[in-house]
């Protein structure tokens, strides 16, 4: 039981961005719950894109990714497309997509899936506030992922953060991309905020660009207004709370 009280250090997968990896203590931990909130409901696709990118970084090639969605998410957010998944560098052929009627069934399926060590990662996507996901349910998910080492990416659209047992909590919004010649939209770009990190600093912003060919995030070239934190050693003692106010969106 002692490992439940103090879970062993989970293997981490680095983002490849110095400031981000330093804040996270080496990257996103496998065998943990990571929550991703869409900043607004129109940012759902961007939040999903960030999640898919993070999953691609955390999954060994050839491993199956299980993507569980509620019926509501499938109706409001659209049908998940293997082509689009593949365009982001994923392997949809190794993916399984499950559409679940309600939140209770979703959480139950997620716990079952997290106990299966053969999976590479589990993505759970829900739309709206999910009352069923209380602290107990969240803790149950966290225990399952700690024991199997399968990371859970909990994707939440149109919801506001509630207390949970997650290791990290992110907020993702779409960001203007670096235009290609001919005024064409460029690579997927996200404004990412680390809202909370268990026993670690949080409250920082990054503008990330997803490089499909290298299968990794890069820091997006700056376009004026935004000045992201580049070094975070100075705030590492800041503890759990938000060390700096999120002044970008105000700007």
């Amino acid at each position, binding site marked *: 039981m002692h490992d439940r009280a103090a879970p062993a250090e989970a293997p981490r997968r680095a983002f490849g961005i110095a400031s981000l990896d330093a804040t996270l203590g080496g990257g996103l931990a496998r065998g943990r719950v990571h929550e991703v909130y869409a900043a607004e409901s129109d940012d759902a*696709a961007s939040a999903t894109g960030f999640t898919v990118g993070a999953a691609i970084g955390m999954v060994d090639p050839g491993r199956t990714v299980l993507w569980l969605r509620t019926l509501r998410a499938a109706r409001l957010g659209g049908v998940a*497309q293997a*082509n689009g*998944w*593949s365009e982001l560098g994923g392997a949809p052929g190794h993916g399984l997509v499950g559409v679940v009627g309600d939140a209770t069934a979703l959480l139950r399926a997620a716990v079952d899936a997290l106990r*299966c060590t053969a999976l590479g990662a589990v993505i759970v996507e829900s739309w709206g506030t999910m009352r069923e996901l209380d602290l107990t349910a969240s803790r149950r998910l966290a225990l399952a992922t700690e024991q199997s080492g399968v990371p859970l990416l909990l994707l939440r659209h149109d919801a506001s953060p509630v207390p949970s047992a997650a290791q990290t909590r992110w907020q993702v919004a779409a960001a203007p*991309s670096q235009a*290609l010649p001919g005024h064409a*939209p460029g690579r*997927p770009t996200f404004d990412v905020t680390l809202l909370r990190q268990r026993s670690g600093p949080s409250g920082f912003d990054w503008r990330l660009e997803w490089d499909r060919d290298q299968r990794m995030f890069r820091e997006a070239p700056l376009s004026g207004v935004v000045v992201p934190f580049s070094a975070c050693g100075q705030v590492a003692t800041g503890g759990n709370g938000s060390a700096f106010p999120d002044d970008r969106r105000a700007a």
Partner: protein
Amino acid sequence: MRLEETDQLSRTIAAPLDAPLALVAKVRGALRLRAVNTQAQALGIAPGQTLADARALHPDLQVADMDEEADRHWLKRLAEHCIAWSPLTTTAPPDGITLDITGGEHLFGGEAGLAAQAEDAFTAIGMTVRVAVAATAQGAQALARHAPLPIRDEREALRALPVLALGLEDEATLALRRAGLKTIGDVAARPAASIAARFGAEAMTALRRLLGEEQAPITPITQPEPLHFERRFAEPVALQASIAACFLSLLHEAARTMEERDLGGRRFVLTLFRSDGARRRLAIETGLPTRDTASVLRLFDERIAALADPLDPGFGYDRITLFLPVTELLVASQPALDGNAQDTAALADLIDRLSTRLGPASLCRLAPQDSHIPEQAQLALPAIHERMPVPWPQPSAGEPPIRPLFLFDPPQPVEVIAEVPDGPPHRFRWRRKLHEVRLYEGPERIASEWWRRKGGEAPGKGGLTRDYYRIEDARGRRYWIFRHGLYEEKPDPRQGPRWYMHGLFA
């Protein structure tokens, strides 16, 4: 006694039944007719002709390829049904079934009654059948294939058969004919020694078997016993614990039987017969063949938990059966050291459980489909049936994503303001919000599948073309919007083409 049926096997093809039809196969480089139906026969078309000759005679002859494998399979299935008349049943390829009816024919009203029953049964499923009864299997086969029916005197009929009925090789048959021996009777009238000396010992053996002087046993086809297990109770059981224990013992029995036969079940059907006659059927499916009672039991638990109306034993069940309609070969194997097999089994177990609980169509694997219409480019296949990963084409390097992560089905209408009629959108309103277009790429023109429409090849009838634009709005959100129809296609005379939101990019 033996009974023999010869069937002209034909397959269903898209042609009227009363049209002349021939099945062809390639023989030494030429397409030759292998089988013809009665209508074709009436026109003077016979098996063995080249297709070119037959076509020259009758240009409207319907032709299909002979599928020998399918015929063999069909013959075997027919033979399996004939087990109803005799357990000693075998196929006599290419077109015969032999039944050893010795001692059993009185159950069906004697030889004639059995023959009539067989004829009726085959006629009912649309087969033409010739039935003959003789002392040996070879004799019956020869009569059914070569003798004019009906047969009055078996001995006379056998002697009147052509020498072809001996079933010898072509050369030997030709040699017999050249020697002036036209019928079996002719051959039988000669001294045995001289026949054996000139045409070989096998000619004599064939002759003796045909005339019933020598017996050759047949090898009957065997049918595995169906995996059907049941428990009957003198007193109905209603206690949860007793039912569970009974079910467990059924599963153990099934697992033992499957282990003996190296089989694993893919589908398990549990039927509960209530004492008042009501019957409840529960079925589960597994992605991999299994005989692991614990995992099957867990799947049934899932199935019972997912029931809309719970099981009600009422006054109790008086009979419980377990049936395994679908099984597959499952040989006990040593687990590989790399743990891959273990992972495969763990994943299959998860897929089984989720599919049982949520329904097979809820957990899918996405497979590519050959269509350029975006919403038809993928097929969601139930994961329980699609076990292996499906390959998807890799996107070309250096490009941004050109297909969206989500697609709306159906596409959602948007109000668009474009600067020029056939140009890209300038700003658009979607879900009651106004979006300014910052960047765009397009149009990517996707034509409708006009060849699927009746009369679609005519101008203006093939359906509307879609012009897709990849769009990024001022806040960085990326959309896939299309205009349904070109201006010159005039989709709606008053309003012009409509615009739709079809997908969202990451």
